[in-house]
């Protein structure tokens, strides 16, 4: 007689065996009363264990799952952000700190910061001229904001919809350069007299642009996934559209006699 099959009985009863394995099992069962008895007991035991029609997670509503990850994230311990996500001022600050430079003051500090910026930014430094960098504060802030939002929108829609060709990596080189320029503009914008909602939106966009600027040149599927997830979670494209329509309404009101 072939060897007993009792350790395969669950797989057999659950239909998980391959056809040759199942045949082998059946051949043994036809000859072995002990294994047949074991199979009967196994099937009776399984019949007593209730099977749920749907997994328990499906009993929770969509709202529960939408907020679940956010609840976990809120409870994560605050840790230092990874180097790749630091802004330029922080990189300069950490360079100064890591160099154990004593407290600096006045022009010496500025000179060192400038040198550090050149060293750290190196070939990655973008010299894209910013059309808003020299704009005066006040009414022009709305124009600057409108222009910034329009270009951010174009960039984010491009990132959302970019798909690599079969077998080719996604190349975000252009998007990374544009996002760096927008990061610089956001810094200037945040010094302008913006309303609270617009200031929050610029802050959110700045974070996303920093993430995008720091994705690896190629093959960074995880980095792109984080950026896309951030765009969706923060509803950025919707907020941009809303803010733009408020700005447009303001412009139309000022133009009217």
């Amino acid at each position, binding site marked *: 007689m072939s060897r007993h099959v*009792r*350790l*395969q*009985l*669950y*797989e057999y009863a659950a239909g*998980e065996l391959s056809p040759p394995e199942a045949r082998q099992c059946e051949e043994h069962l036809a000859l072995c009363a002990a294994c047949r008895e*074991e199979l009967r*007991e*196994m099937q*009776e*035991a*399984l019949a*007593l*264990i*209730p*099977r*749920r*029609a*749907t*997994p*328990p*997670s499906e*009993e*929770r509503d969509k709202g*529960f*799952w939408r907020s*679940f*990850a*956010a*609840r*976990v*994230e809120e*409870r*994560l*311990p605050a*840790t*230092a*952000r*990874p*180097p*790749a*996500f630091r802004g330029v001022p922080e990189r300069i600050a950490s360079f100064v700190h890591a160099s154990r430079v004593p407290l600096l003051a006045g022009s010496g500090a500025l000179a060192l910061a400038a040198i550090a910026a050149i060293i750290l930014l190196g070939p990655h430094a973008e010299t894209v001229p910013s059309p808003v960098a020299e704009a005066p504060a006040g009414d022009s802030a709305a124009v600057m904001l409108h222009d910034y939002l329009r270009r951010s929108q174009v960039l984010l829609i491009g990132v959302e919809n970019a798909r690599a060709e079969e077998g080719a990596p996604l190349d975000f080189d252009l998007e990374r350069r544009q996002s760096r320029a927008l990061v610089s503009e956001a810094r200037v914008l945040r010094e302008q007299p913006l309303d609270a909602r617009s200031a929050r939106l610029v802050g959110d966009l700045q974070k996303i642009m920093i*993430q995008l600027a720091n994705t690896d040149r190629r093959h*960074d*599927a*995880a*980095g792109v*996934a*984080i950026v896309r*997830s*951030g765009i969706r979670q923060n509803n950025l494209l919707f907020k941009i559209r809303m803010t733009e329509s408020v700005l447009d309404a303001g412009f139309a009101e000022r133009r009217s006699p």
Partner: protein
Amino acid sequence: MVRPPQTGHAMPADEERQLISRARTGSHGAFRILVERHMKHAYDVAFSFVGNHDDASDVTQEAFLRAYGALSSFREEAGFGTWLHRIVMNLAMNRAKKNRTRLAREVDAAEAPAAAGEPEGEDLRGHIERALHELPTLQRAVVILRTMDGLSTKQVSNILRCSEGTVKTHLFRGLRKMKAKLEFLQEDAR
């Protein structure tokens, strides 16, 4: 429970490794994506052990927080999901044990009469839970993961860090004991 044989949250291994690597350096965004990919399955595993939504939710959240804190010790010998399920299972079993102890104390304190008026379905469910919880730890874990969560023998062996043969042996013995216990409990209740 209806489940596909695999864990059902396929993510390319490279992408998952990149996310883990970023999460290790402090990226909450990367960890959040891992949470979103694994939360439902982790919840189902937790629920199988604790049997109610409040505890399953607490245990699942706690498991992710523990996983985040222990990412530096995750050696990627198994997948992130398997490692996470191990954490979920340990926390859920502890929670289930605490609940049973608390319930036993409450019943003793109240000197509750036998639940003669309970509907039949609730009665059977109670018997099954009791029979399950009286199994030795490993047998209980194997029976739950294999028959109720629908994980494969290989997945269970990875979670419990034992051979597939051991999983099969525990499943066979666990089911046999469960049947005997259920028959005894049902006869006793008549």
